């Protein structure tokens, strides 16, 4: 898992609960805790951190991930402004996610397990996001979509139609825009 995700998690937790909580999480999760965005760290560490946060906050891990994804979006916008430039809607931004992620992962590690996103429209005018990744972080993706909607001042309703965590080959999130 890319270091930037750890950085964002640290920032989200620190902003909401303070520095000390983050340090406690690191220690409870038993991870080494020094993450640079240029690095890549074992997936087990992010899982352990999310687990520790879930226990501390008395939430399900899935809810922690969703909260985190949503809270991280403004931070991403600040750190990676160029990726947001030119997009006038959340949908436009979401469709560009492969362009953002692939080079980011491959520039450091060729062939690294890249999360894959596929986009189509269903009969009801919803955007269907197909997500597949060995890390199975669909709830994080869910949170990112909510965060993207926040950023562009839009309201969305997301249905988690199929999930890798339940044995499906691909996660499918159907996003409906509300006006």
């Amino acid at each position, binding site marked *: 898992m890319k270091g930037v995700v750890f950085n964002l998690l640290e920032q989200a937790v620190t902003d909401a609960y303070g520095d000390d909580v983050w340090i406690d999480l690191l220690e409870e999760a038993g991870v080494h805790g020094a993450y640079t*965005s*240029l690095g890549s760290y074992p997936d087990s560490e992010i899982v352990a951190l999310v687990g520790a946060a879930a226990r501390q906050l008395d939430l399900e891990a899935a809810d922690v991930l969703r909260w985190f994804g949503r809270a991280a979006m403004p931070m991403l916008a600040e750190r990676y402004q160029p990726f947001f430039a030119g997009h006038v809607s959340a949908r436009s931004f979401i469709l560009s996610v492969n362009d953002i992620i692939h080079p980011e992962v491959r520039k450091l590690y060729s062939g690294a397990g890249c999360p894959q996103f596929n986009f189509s429209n269903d009969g009801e005018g919803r955007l269907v996001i197909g997500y597949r990744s060995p890390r199975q972080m669909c709830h994080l993706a869910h949170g990112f979509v909510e965060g993207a909607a926040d950023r562009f001042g839009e309201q969305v309703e997301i249905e988690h139609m199929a999930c890798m965590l339940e044995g499906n*080959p*691909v996660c499918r999130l159907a996003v409906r825009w509300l006006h």
Partner: protein
Amino acid sequence: MSPGGSLASLKHCAPPRDDDLDARLARAERRVVRERAARIEAEAIAEQGLRRLYESQQRLLLLQRITDGANRTAEIEAALRVAVTEICRHMDWAFGNALLVSAQDGAVTGCDVWYAADPDAMFPFVEASRHVRFETGVGLPGRILADVRPHWIDDVTADANFPRLPVAAHCGLAAACAFPVMVGDEVAGVLEFFARRLIVPDEDLLGIMGQIGTQLGRVIERDRARRGLIHDALHDAMTRLPNRTLFMERAENAFVRMKANPHACMAVMVVDLDGFKSVNDSLGHQAGDALLIDVATRMQACIAAAEEAARDVGASWRATLARVGGDEFNVLVDDVVDGAAVGRLAEAIHRCLAAPSVLAGTHMRCQASVGIAFSNPTYADVEQMLRDADLAMYRAKSQGRGQSVTFTEQLGTQVRQRTQVEHELRKAIAERQFVLHYQPIVSLDDPDSICGFEALIRWNHPVRGLLSPAEFIDVAEETGLILFIGDWVLREACAQAASWHWRTGGERLPFVSINISPQQFLQPEFVARVHAVLMETGVTPAAVRLEVTEGVAIMDAARTSAILEEIRAWGVKTSLDDFGTGFSSLSYLQSLPFDALKIDRSFVAAMDDSGKSRGIIQAILNLARTMGMTVIAEGIETVEQEELLQRMGCDMGQGFRYGRAEVNAEAFAKLAVC
């Protein structure tokens, strides 16, 4: 105070008191904040640098691929096709199209060179773009013509100068960009691209597109120079044969003379070399040129010999051999009385090409496809004769190498019919006239239990009713429309399978077996297409079986193996279809990781009468078992066949005994009761 200045004075400061700890802590925290800020700035700088480096490397690779493609060919269309395909795949854009500027009217017209990542969904836009014509200033390509620079459109559905807007909106296209292909200062062509998401122009991209435009411009320049040379002179520089201009002059004169003399006939032959392109590709232009010269010399000699032999027996026909294209020759046979002489001449040409050419120590073999058209009262001019000879040549080519075909009314009718079918197929794709039927595949141990279905395409023809593939697949393959149809079949079948699973609450997981046409399989992006369909339909990969025919699988065994491995890594299964009817050797079978074999129905049908057939099937079954492959026997019609195959150890069966191919509702109903 001791002497030594201010620094020395600090030595005598008192040690920190407790309440200074708070101040120290505060300073330490501020230091952490500054360190973090510095770290984040360092990361941002490094990240940006690495990303730019990566993207620039990727774009250089893109440029390299396109340059290689452009250098390998003298034909503009081939170079444009490489460019359009590579750019779309690199940038993950949905559609790319190439247009050329016409010298006569200064407009820019599509030359049927395009790429669509998702052919089925893009079909209407493909049709609207591949031959589209724009005047200067009109539409996206017209803008390039007018301004001689790249253009971007953020949202095509909101653009005032975009005639194809309705079709683009229908296909879900959002953004577009286009670049000129320059020869010197002049726009010779336009490459346009469309995406379903925003396209962000940046300096690097503009730079690379400019370089690509220049490379392609060079190909156009080379082609123009070549045509210019041929046009000005009357002879082809390389082979010294008459060129097209001289040929047409003589042919037209001969035509006029023939019209005046009721007893004389003339004929034209179109001679197209088979396999010339692969010689060029594998051994390079110089070898290709040497081969052309050798071929031309041989044909010239053989025609001269035939002429002389004819003179000796009192005939008086004359023949002119001309080089009219890259690997295309025409022969004019004038003043011929006995039509059979022309057929014999064609045979002589085939014979003289039979022996390989030995050039620079390498053996190269070149055969020809010959189309012949005889004069008759219905022809108004020689162009019409050449057109028909051309049609006959294409028919000869489709029959294999070294063939001759003479144009007849019947051939003409057949061609017209095929053109009609092609036209109707295009309409069928646009109007969604196709439907999938499903034929059950059962376990031979328990024939009441359906393991899966084979998806078979049918065409709901508005006039002719329900048509089976036999009535249209070969036209679809010849015209390349199979790409759109096959793409639709793949997605439709996977969506259907996903729906079966969902409707049975995940209880039943029957597989769907989908035929993949050779052309689909040979597409460079076949694997990506399969992946996209899996993602889009959410079907369980293990419930998808792709059937590939033996013929295409062994065409390039290494590539087939790589494709199969990738597909299997997702859990998709693959079957070798029509097994036993191709020419594969057992060593191929060993190296191609198929999951299943389908025994062709002809073997099953012959089983009743022939112990030999039974023996062959048993051998296939043993082979499959050794290699861990499942076997499905097709065409089971009787209970005797079923029992025999079951005893021999065949796993699954398909055929009229278990059901015909039916619409989805019927097939699903069968599933529910077994």
